[in-house]
């Protein structure tokens, strides 16, 4: 009998309803192989793109991918690239990014990306193949203890030993990755589990009660914070990636709160874009290479409101001298972030959007009070600090300053629908300083782990999610080479990612530290035997642009933007430029180095042991 043929039981009108019920039940217990379940679960979770690399232990899943058209698979050239691409996809969309890799080396190559996503709280799911269950523990070909290896670098992971529970596990994995403080999850699926058949559990039948993080903040603490806000004389908002992870609503509420109160706002590297760089109250990024006015405001404030940031050591500098006179409020969805590094006076555990909503409601209900006079004085003081103009530089001669290159890039691309990724090092800090971000999810960078090689694959993930947008990876030549194999991916899938390489033939940040604290002994911090990047691009079938003269820069950047396809832009820049401002290790916020003249003996022995 046809599955949808009406039953001939003569029960008249009722049969329609019965048919629907039967059909739903059939759906719920639909029998399928584990491999098909993977594809079905991804579809049911709204996944449209998977980044991956096939191998023996995931062949059944690849066979299912071959036989459908709903999910697009992007073949990367190295598993690390797959995970970073999934991260870029996740960061630019707010959705869970998915990577699919094989057992053994496939899984171990994914470890860096997982750790990167863990430190930056990025929701990704990595599906790994595993040797069949009956061979686990026998040192089989391409066997690795994947759940053991990835236990400390995932938010949670699972070894799916039974096809009957595989679908539920996958749905739970999506739930865990995306709720609470987001993070990477991994599901390891042995090959026999992929081949075996069982009933499919749909998302709505999945039990997620075990993991339900607290979303709304305690109202008493919120009242306490609003009271502190009303009387504060020198308040500052210190925001982080948590605002972006909370979703667009959090950024919207943050903007509303800042505009309504007139309180100045700074952000960590991870939080750029939550408040627009063009905003009146924007101080710029804070931290080790943050702006002078931002760090001074943090040091001298009397009320610090941390929203979704975690007092990272790049932010605090010397902890004992960190913002000594301030009352500190901390809004974070993860209770373990509170009091981990800095003692908090007003802790609020909850989702940023929910807490900000409550803060605004309470503040409005209490009469929108704010100490306007004191804040006007405070703003005056901040404007004095702004006059230091800590990002100033002089472009002269025939060599391009990296700052100048980014300033021109900003000028020529700011009107575009633009996404920026970066690698790690000096160029990353300059990009954070000189590029302006008006919206969340537009800035993808490896903050916590500092993964060189992150930016290029991430740009591929971003471009997949936003095919019509301008996606630029601001890179250093050394970082970029770490995952340059992904040129093959970019060309194969016609992803017009722009690789804007600030080429100083140095590991610039390493060189800077060696200059400042290792007696200018530049141990292994230069790039020799670099490829000809133009020829390299051409060898992959892409476009290469070389620019070394400041006079040609604008035209070259325009050529890059206008080319419909991947571009490697080799921008030869000043080789010995240092990144300022800089808070040296072991120093407080108000002892920044602002330029070359201030670097002599700046880092003492105590600071030299810090990273």
């Amino acid at each position, binding site marked *: 009998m046809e599955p949808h043929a009406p039953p001939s039981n003569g029960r008249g009108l009722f049969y329609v309803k019965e048919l629907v019920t039967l059909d739903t039940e059939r759906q719920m217990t639909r029998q399928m192989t584990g491999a098909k379940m993977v594809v079905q679960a991804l579809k049911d979770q709204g996944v449209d793109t998977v980044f991956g690399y096939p191998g023996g232990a995931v062949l059944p899943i690849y066979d299912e991918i071959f036989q459908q058209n709903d999910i697009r698979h992007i073949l990367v050239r190295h598993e690390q690239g797959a995970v970073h691409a999934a991260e870029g996809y996740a960061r630019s969309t707010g959705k869970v990014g998915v990577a699919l890799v094989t057992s053994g080396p496939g899984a171990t190559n994914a470890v860096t990306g997982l750790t990167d996503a863990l430190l930056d709280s990025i929701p990704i799911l990595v599906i790994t193949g595993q040797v069949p269950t009956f061979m686990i523990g026998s040192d089989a070909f391409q066997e690795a203890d994947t759940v053991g290896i990835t236990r400390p670098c995932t938010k*949670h992971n699972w070894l799916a030993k039974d096809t009957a529970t595989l679908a539920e596990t996958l749905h739970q994995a999506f739930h865990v990755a995306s709720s609470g403080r987001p993070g990477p999850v991994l599901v390891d699926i042995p090959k026999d589990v992929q081949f075996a058949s069982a009933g499919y559990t749909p998302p709505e039948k999945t039990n997620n009660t075990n993991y339900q993080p*607290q979303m709304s903040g305690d109202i008493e603490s919120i009242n306490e914070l609003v009271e502190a806000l009303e009387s504060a004389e020198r308040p500052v908002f210190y925001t982080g990636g948590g605002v972006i992870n909370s979703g667009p609503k959090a950024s919207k509420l943050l903007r509303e709160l800042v505009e309504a109160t007139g309180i100045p706002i700074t952000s960590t590297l991870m939080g750029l874009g939550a408040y627009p760089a063009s905003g009146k109250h924007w101080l710029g990024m804070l931290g080790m290479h943050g702006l002078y006015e931002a760090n001074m405001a943090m040091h001298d404030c009397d009320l610090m409101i941390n929203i979704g940031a975690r007092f990272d050591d790049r932010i605090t500098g010397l902890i004992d001298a960190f913002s000594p006179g301030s009352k500190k409020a901390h809004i974070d969805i993860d209770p373990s972030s*509170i*009091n981990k590094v800095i*003692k908090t006076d007003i802790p609020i555990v909850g989702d940023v959007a929910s807490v900000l909503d409550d803060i605004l409601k309470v503040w409005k209900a209490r009469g929108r009070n704010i100490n306007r006079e004191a804040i006007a004085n405070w703003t005056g003081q901040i404007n004095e600090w702004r006059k230091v103009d800590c990002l100033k530089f002089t472009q002269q001669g025939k060599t391009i300053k990296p700052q100048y290159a980014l300033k021109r890039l900003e000028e020529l691309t700011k009107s575009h629908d633009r996404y920026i990724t970066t690698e790690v090092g000096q160029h990353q800090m300059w990009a954070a300083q000189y590029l302006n971000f008006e919206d969340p999810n537009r800035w993808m960078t490896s903050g916590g782990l500092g993964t060189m090689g992150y930016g290029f694959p991430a740009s591929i993930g971003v471009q997949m999610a936003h095919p019509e947008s301008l996606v630029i990876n601001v890179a250093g030549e050394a970082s970029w080479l770490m995952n340059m194999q992904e040129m093959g991916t970019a060309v194969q899938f016609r992803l017009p990612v722009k690789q804007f390489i600030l080429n100083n033939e140095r590991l610039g940040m390493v060189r800077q530290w060696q200059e400042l604290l290792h007696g200018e002994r530049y141990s292994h911090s230069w790039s020799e035997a670099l490829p000809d990047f133009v020829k390299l691009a051409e060898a992959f079938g892409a476009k290469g642009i070389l620019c070394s003269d400041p006079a040609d820069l604008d035209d070259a950047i325009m050529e890059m933007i206008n080319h419909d396809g991947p571009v490697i832009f080799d921008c030869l820049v000043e080789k010995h430029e240092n990144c300022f401002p800089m808070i040296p290790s072991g120093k407080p916020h108000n002892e920044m180095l602002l330029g070359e003249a201030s670097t002599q003996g700046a880092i003492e022995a105590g600071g030299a042991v810090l990273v």
Partner: protein
Amino acid sequence: MAALKIKKGSTKHSAYNLRPNFSDVQESHTLAVVVDNEPGVLARVIGLFSGRGYNIESLTVAEIDHTGHHSRITVVTKGTPQVIEQIKAQLGRIVPVHEVHDLTVEGAAVERELALLKVAGAGDKRVEALRLADIFRANVVDSTLESFVFEITGTSEKIDAFADLMRPLGLVEVARTGVAALSRGSE
């Protein structure tokens, strides 16, 4: 110091109570952690302690609810109040962890440990060992003409004291279970 009692999904007991004094005094705390009894859960807990540099003084684990597949891990750990609070918060982050109780600060608790001690000897020493075992209410669970195996339960301190007394009397081997603990009272 207020205790951090983390129960997943609960809004009543949370980090709002978390106002540790940042003192440098090392405190020993007994934590009871209720977890899903799934493969690798113990590794997650132990990995947390080793990965973040916390101490484990004693650890016991067994399934306590066979139908719900829940296990109870009792950990005795040492650290400053800030570190203890951080350990509890970090334990609470582990997905299969349901509850974290700090029995040291959540009111009175009973703590017990079981130990088996093999004591070999003859003559007066053998008699003395048996007499001391009687004082400590230790049971003889195995005996030969040259040895006893004693079973003793009590606090860790009591077992330490008993082991110290047995050492000059021919203590050969000790096996201890680690601490199991429950809060006193009806809840």
